[in-house]
């Protein structure tokens, strides 16, 4: 029954192409919702039922392919995460896509909706399929459909180029996963996640894990494998960026977790590798984010930071496994896993709002925005809540996952030996630094975009987006607040998943005390919210009795009135830039004032900072390689005689080599 329903949904995606333009959206929404309901029922069965997993056989007799969908608790968790964000994203898309209805034809919309559906379906299949070959097929569908989604606005050639670059990098990742699976196949005769256990029990764990880690890490966006992320997210339409950043990159995390479930030795080393790469991703991701001027690119770098936080949790969990530290394993993995969900919520929210800002102002450049809180109050408040949550501030959800990771570390400190203490303390410092930097970054982003005076004509003309774009975000906000205030109900199932997935023996002690702590946090958060409300009410009545005046901002005796005298994003990051110079390599383009220039003319100032990893890992090798290819292109003369000569030389070579028995 399940299988038939699922197959019906799969096959019903194709008619999207043949439906009139006006109802296409609703048809897609209907299909999406049926998919979400069906998979949610499966997840419910897995969570509520006694059976650990649910198997569904999809037999496509036409192609003689037998797909088996297996849902265990880990898959179910990821399905829930995918469902929420894909749903809100598609609701949001309705308003976001409306301006394009005139300019783009029906086929473009069909492709877009079709890809969106298949991105969703491929993501839920990625987390359900265990067989290697089928996994690679759906993994590929995921890459292709997201590629089609990214290039929605392909009239813009830069977007098409970015899309192709994205597609290539995804395939580099896939190549690594393929090699890893082939290695497993060669050694065990099976090509699936289930065979990994067999492989790991009598082969080197490290090598295979690293192959998988690179493959999945490219999807997840760990530094230095992140280079596609800051390009593809700004290029894509905002609901797609939200889904890609919110859930698609988490498929990489899922892959890593799935592989980790089978790893048996070299755990300490593997944990350290994950931890160090994650720390680098976390700190550098946010450091680079601070100097970005493009709002969506800034958010994209923040995804890298958050992937770093998730990775820190996972890395600590693995180290905990290696050192038999149950509390660290439980809290590390749970913190990481919960952060997967948290990040999918607030990051999609932030991307949707960035999209609303783009739609209202037609620019993503922070320096041209400002004062939007007055023009777009709903968007501003939603963005503010998202910012607070992503900075990991209580009483929102980001705090809960970071707290779990912190708690795991602080609890393990006293029993740790010298090296573990140093590792843990380094991680604590890294996480604290990430928190501080995130606050720096989001005070900048929110402050410059939404507060102050408008910095350009575009920002001045902005209008609030429609209700249909605001409404879906309330769903996301509800989850953010709920996880923040009633964390216990979300952390318990996560504990459950982690315990089952990694076969932890007895967690009741660590789990109970943590649940107890979380209850206290909920109480304290409640007191906090309550205090704010009480004080606000008091303030309201207090101010009523006093004289309230409105005047210009205090300008320290110099109230000159142009918006250009405000602090800009660049000036906000100035002193930070000063100490982060070696890593960011910010370049300034300006002409100095000459000595004989008594009345300086109009001048421009451009500051730009490169991503050093992209520069040295992608751009430079590609430049070098294309330079080499250009040199080889000398042979391409265009004269048929030369080509015949090449053929002769080649044949001669083959003849000679065969003659001397060399080939």
């Amino acid at each position: 029954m399940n299988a038939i329903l699922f197959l019906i949904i799969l096959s019903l995606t194709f008619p999207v192409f043949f439906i009139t333009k006006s109802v296409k959206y609703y048809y897609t929404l209907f299909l999406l919702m049926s998919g979400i309901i069906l998979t949610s029922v499966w997840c419910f069965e897995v969570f509520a039922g006694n059976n650990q997993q649910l198997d569904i056989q999809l037999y496509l007799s036409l192609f003689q392919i037998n797909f088996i969908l297996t849902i265990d608790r880990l898959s179910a968790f990821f399905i829930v995460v995918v469902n929420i964000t894909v749903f809100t994203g598609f609701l949001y898309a309705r308003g976001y896509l409306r301006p394009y209805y005139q300019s783009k034809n029906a086929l473009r919309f069909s492709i877009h909706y079709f890809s969106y559906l298949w991105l969703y379906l491929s993501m839920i299949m990625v987390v359900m399929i265990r067989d290697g070959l089928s996994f690679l097929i759906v993994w590929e569908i995921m890459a292709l459909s997201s590629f089609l989604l990214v290039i929605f606005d392909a009239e813009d050639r830069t977007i098409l180029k970015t899309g192709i670059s994205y597609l290539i990098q995804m395939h580099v990742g896939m190549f690594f996963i393929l090699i890893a699976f082939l290695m497993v196949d060669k050694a065990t005769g099976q090509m699936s996640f289930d065979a990994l256990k067999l492989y790991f029990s009598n082969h080197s764990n490290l090598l295979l894990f690293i192959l998988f880690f690179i493959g999945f890490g490219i999807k997840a966006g760990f530094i230095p494998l992140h280079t596609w992320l800051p390009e593809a997210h700004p290029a894509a339409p905002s609901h797609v960026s939200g889904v890609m950043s919110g859930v698609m990159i988490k498929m990489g995390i899922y892959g890593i977790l799935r592989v980790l479930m089978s790893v048996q030795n070299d755990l300490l080393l593997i944990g350290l590798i994950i931890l160090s790469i994650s720390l680098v991703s976390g700190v550098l991701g946010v450091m680079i984010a601070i100097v970005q001027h493009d709002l969506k690119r800034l958010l994209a770098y923040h995804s890298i930071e958050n992937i770093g936080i998730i990775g820190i949790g996972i890395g600590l969990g693995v180290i905990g496994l290696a050192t038999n530290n149950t509390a660290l394993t439980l809290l590390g993995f749970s913190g990481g896993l919960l952060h997967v969900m948290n990040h999918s919520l607030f990051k999609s929210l932030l991307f949707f709002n960035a999209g609303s800002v783009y739609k209202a102002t037609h620019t993503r450049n922070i320096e041209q925005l400002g004062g939007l809180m007055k023009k777009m109050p709903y968007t501003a408040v939603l963005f503010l809540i998202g910012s607070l949550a992503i900075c990991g501030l209580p009483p929102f959800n980001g705090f809960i996952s970071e707290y779990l990771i912190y708690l795991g570390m602080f609890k393990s400190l006293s029993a740790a030996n010298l090296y573990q203490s140093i590792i843990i303390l380094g991680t604590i410092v890294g996480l604290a630094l990430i928190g501080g930097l995130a606050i720096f970054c989001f005070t900048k982003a929110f402050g410059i975009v939404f507060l102050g005076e408008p910095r350009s004509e575009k920002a001045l003309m902005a209008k609030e987006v429609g209700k249909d774009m605001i409404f879906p975000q309330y769903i996301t906000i509800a989850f953010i607040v709920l996880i923040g205030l009633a964390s216990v109900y979300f952390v318990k199932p996560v504990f459950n998943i982690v315990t089952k997935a990694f076969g932890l023996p007895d967690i009741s002690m660590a789990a109970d005390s943590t649940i107890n702590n979380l209850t206290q946090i909920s109480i304290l958060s409640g007191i906090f919210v309550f205090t704010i409300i009480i004080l606000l009410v008091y303030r309201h009545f207090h101010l009523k009795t006093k004289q309230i005046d409105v005047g210009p901002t205090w300008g320290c005796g110099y109230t000159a009135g142009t918006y250009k005298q405000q602090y800009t994003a660049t000036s906000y990051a100035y002193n930070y830039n000063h100490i982060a110079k070696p890593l960011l390599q910010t370049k300034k383009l300006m002409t100095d004032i000459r000595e004989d220039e008594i009345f300086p003319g109009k001048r421009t100032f451009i500051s730009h900072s490169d991503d050093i990893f992209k520069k040295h890992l992608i751009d430079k090798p590609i430049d070098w390689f294309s330079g080499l290819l250009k040199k080889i292109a000398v042979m391409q003369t265009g004269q048929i005689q030369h080509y015949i000569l090449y053929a002769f030389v080649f044949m001669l070579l083959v003849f000679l080599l065969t003659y001397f028995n060399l080939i």
Partner: protein
Amino acid sequence: MIGFVLILIAAFFFPGLILRTKSIASGRKGPGILQPVKDIGVLMRKGSVFSKTTGLVFQIAPVVTLSSILCALLVIPFANQNAVISFEGDFVFFSYLLAFGKFFAIIAALDTGSSFEGMGANREAFFSMLMEPAFFILLATFAMFTGYTSFSDIFSHFFIIENHYVLIYSIIGFFLFVQIAMVENSRLPVDDPKTHLELTMIHEVMILDNSGFDKALIHIGSYLKFAIYGALMYNVIVPAGWNIFLQTGLFLVVQVAFAIIIGLIESFRARNKMNKNPKFILTISAIAWIAFVVILILTDKLI
């Protein structure tokens, strides 16, 4: 609960004591000890002027900041009694809650669109970001040293450990808390609240546009913050097991001493050059690292 009340009492007199010390040190007659509290009363009675650039954020920020400080207060223990609310890892909550308040203070400053306040906002964000690691290293070493992970447990087990070098640790902890308090409260040598040039201020320049009730809230918040850090200092130098009456007396002595120290520092020291501040703050983190190494030796992990 006693601790909660004591901190409130300390906060009541704290700013006056600093002012008094400064005026005596500079040979002035100076205002009375209760002057800052009276000033708050004056502010409460005054009306407010709001900039037309500002909006919702500016209106609620002082309230949010004060609430965050008030709630952070609840996890600070006193003597052998637990704090009002105490749980494992409560200092993480403490730090992030204060950061929440700071977040709002910063964006409220940006809400005015004034470049002066932008400057202050940026500095506040920047310096508190640099400060974050020092606090966490210090607490992590406490946690490692005592084996507990909440303020209440750490401080009540601080002096019972069979390690006779605990005094070293208590002094390092005290020193670091003083430094952290100075940065967090924007006092000398990082920031001089009494400077008269907006370009060189940090905290004071952020609140240029606040007036009346809101300004009073901001002041109350900063007084409370002093007393909170004073209480933390007290906890690392006085064993929690002592008699409660003795402790109450000592608590007030420590708070008074802390206020006088601040007053004296501010009387005899110049403010750092602004671009020296990052180095200064990172040095505090470095000292915290040293404290960590000391603890590694004390707990026989190293050598």
